[in-house]
């Protein structure tokens, strides 16, 4: 028998055994290891710590309760965030967008600054930064420490464990659950984290689908829109609970899209075998509360906020410029929004939202402030003529969007969906290009979610129209 014959024989057997060989071999090894270990190991006493871990894992990683427990835990975190962010958000809004703004405008007037300069700097650059802070800081300052506490407690590997079965069904690597979790913080970081996946095929799937993890820049948008559009439809007592539920639902939808798209990719353009890996569940540790709050405020909240502010300043300038430079009697923003409006309304969004997503390509954090500024600048309302004075209380955000922007419940829902399903921010795209070294895959990473997002929004809008809700 020649060498080639041996290989042919192996290939024939491999085909017959199918995909299950690996699992069957691993299973045989595990049962052997288990029976040897059982004979050699004896345990007594002092098991309290382990018993606690085991009992907890029996719930948190159980086949039936694991996923509901996960939804419940994250739901709780969002609910605390939404319920707790209301008051400080209103206070910050009042301080930055009313008091400080008024003070700045008074100062500019006293110095005799020309209207275009003070408009550009105060109504453009300053106001967009102020809104970013007022909208984003309170929810971030509550949500990030909560998330870090869960991380510190040792919960995140359990999430990966719970999701592993689903990922392997989707033909993806189980470690993708980990890079996905990372993506819930920042997609660029999530894309880098896919380096832990060795198979290039599975890694590419993880990179292309990382954008379906809601990142830090998008949580505040979802939390805000969920509060003022979805939460508001429920009785006051349940409002924050319903709002939290809607955010969890969108995040879950993201996980579902991750799995569906991974599955679709691995069945079409990225075919191949699924590889196995071992995940160690570390012992639960009592979280170090004070240290966690301190570091998550410094490491996460401040860094994300700083990035948002840095991005918001030029965006504010751009918005002010396109709203104030007129071309044949109307502002540039007007022309662009008018051009985008028919398509925007068709998919249940509007021209302003689409323009905002173009302006906000560098950072998703500034979507809401951008939408607000564009809405106010474009509607020649009394409010806008007074300057862009607006107290950023949540009710008033709603008033502006519904009153001046003509938003409906559908617009709110679709903005949440589009926030989940649109192109990654420019930082993430750059990271994808660096990690894949391929323009083609970077383009796919950008185009795939947009196409999906527009399709999903259009379907939702069509459904609403069919039911006669709008």
């Amino acid at each position: 028998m020649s060498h080639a014959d041996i290989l042919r024989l192996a290939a024939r057997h491999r085909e017959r055994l199918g995909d299950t060989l690996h699992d069957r071999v691993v299973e045989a090894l595990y049962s052997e290891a288990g029976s040897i270990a059982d004979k050699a190991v004896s345990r007594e006493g002092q098991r309290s710590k382990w018993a606690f871990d085991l009992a907890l894992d029996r719930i948190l990683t159980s086949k039936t309760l694991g996923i509901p427990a996960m939804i419940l835990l994250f739901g709780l975190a969002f609910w605390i965030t939404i319920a707790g962010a209301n008051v400080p958000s209103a206070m910050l809004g009042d301080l930055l967008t009313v008091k400080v703004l008024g003070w700045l405008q008074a100062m500019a007037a006293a110095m005799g600054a020309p209207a275009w300069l003070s408009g550009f700097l105060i109504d453009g650059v300053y106001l967009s930064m102020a809104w970013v802070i007022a909208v984003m800081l309170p929810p971030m300052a509550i949500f990030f420490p909560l998330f870090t506490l869960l991380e510190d407690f040792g919960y995140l590997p359990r999430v990966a464990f719970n999701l592993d079965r689903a990922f392997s069904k989707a033909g993806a690597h189980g470690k993708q659950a980990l890079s996905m979790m990372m993506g819930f913080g920042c997609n660029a970081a999530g894309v880098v984290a896919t380096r832990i996946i060795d198979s290039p095929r599975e890694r590419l799937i993880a990179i292309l689908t990382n954008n379906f993890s809601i990142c830090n820049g998008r949580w505040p948008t979802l939390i805000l829109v969920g509060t003022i559009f979805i939460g508001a439809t429920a009785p006051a007592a349940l409002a924050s609970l319903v709002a939290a539920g809607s955010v969890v639902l969108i995040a879950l939808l993201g996980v579902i899209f991750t799995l569906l798209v991974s599955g679709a990719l691995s069945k079409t353009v990225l075919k191949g075998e699924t590889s196995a890996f071992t995940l160690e569940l570390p012992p639960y540790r009592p979280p170090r509360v004070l240290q966690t709050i301190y570091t998550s405020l410094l490491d996460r909240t401040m860094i994300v906020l700083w990035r948002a502010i840095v991005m918001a300043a030029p965006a504010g300038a751009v918005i002010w410029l396109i709203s104030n430079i007129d071309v044949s009697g109307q502002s540039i923003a007007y022309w662009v929004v008018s051009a985008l409006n028919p398509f925007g309304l068709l998919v249940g969004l509007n021209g302003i939202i689409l323009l905002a997503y173009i302006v906000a390509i560098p950072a998703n954090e500034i979507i809401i402030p951008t939408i607000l500024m564009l809405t106010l600048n474009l509607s020649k309302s009394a409010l806008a003529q007074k300057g862009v004075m607006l107290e950023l209380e949540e009710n008033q955000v709603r008033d502006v969007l519904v009153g001046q922007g003509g938003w409906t419940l559908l617009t709110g829902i679709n903005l949440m969906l589009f926030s989940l399903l649109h192109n990654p921010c420019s930082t993430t795209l750059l990271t994808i290009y660096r990690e894949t070294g391929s323009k083609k895959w970077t383009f796919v990473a950008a185009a795939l979610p947009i196409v999906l997002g527009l399709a999903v929004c259009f379907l939702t809008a069509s459904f609403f129209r069919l039911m006669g809700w709008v």
Partner: protein
Amino acid sequence: MTVDQTQKACGGCTSCAPGRLERYGLATAGADYVVALAGNPNTGKSTIFNALTGLRQHVGNWPGKTVVRAEGGFSFDGRRYRLIDLPGTYSLLSNSSDEEVARDFLLFGQPDVTAIVVDASSLERNLNLVLQVLEITDRAVVALNLIDEAERNGITVDDRALARDLGVPVVPMAARKSKGIKDFLQTLAGVASGEVVCRPKRVERFDAEVERAVNDLVRALHENYPGLPNARWVALRLLEGDPSVVHEVQNGTLGEAAHGHRPDAEVALA
């Protein structure tokens, strides 16, 4: 009692003569035996590696891989050893580059002894790797490490029962407290010189369909490469389509693994 007196008092007894370990650090040339150090991550593998070789060690990458490779030398009882630290892995079955490196070195580097470091507190998980290593090589020592931690958690491991079931020597250790290092070295020396003969446990209980395929391939392998020591493992790897094993079969170089050291084993090491 001084060292001198100890040596006098113990006379010719070789069981615990002190000071027979010399750490050579970087100097690995002219080694009599090659020892591979395998084990799960976080089992104290590096502690043992450092205890044997001293703090000076050669750290580089495995050829063509971004996997760190550390090696060092020591001498014990007048014999010189070259110690290769394999990447810490939970298994040898997946296609991660860590596991590939460890797997290929055990299969093609043909170390004289493979020491497998295991965590006594989570024996079952660690045994998965041990069983996989024992499928590849029959000269192995299990370092049952972290027994102090296991005891604190109320876990006792019967090392003799374990040795009987695995068919290779098992040495209880607490390397961080330098406990068991000497026993470990002695056992290593015994296995390397062939004084201690291992009869490693091989998993024989795959289901009938896999068994049939494996046996079929093993027959073909034995026909071509008489005396191949780990034909079952090679057969399994071929069934999984492992590219490096397929490559060896294509080249016909697999047979050299059957006859101890291969000429290019040293090249693979360098």
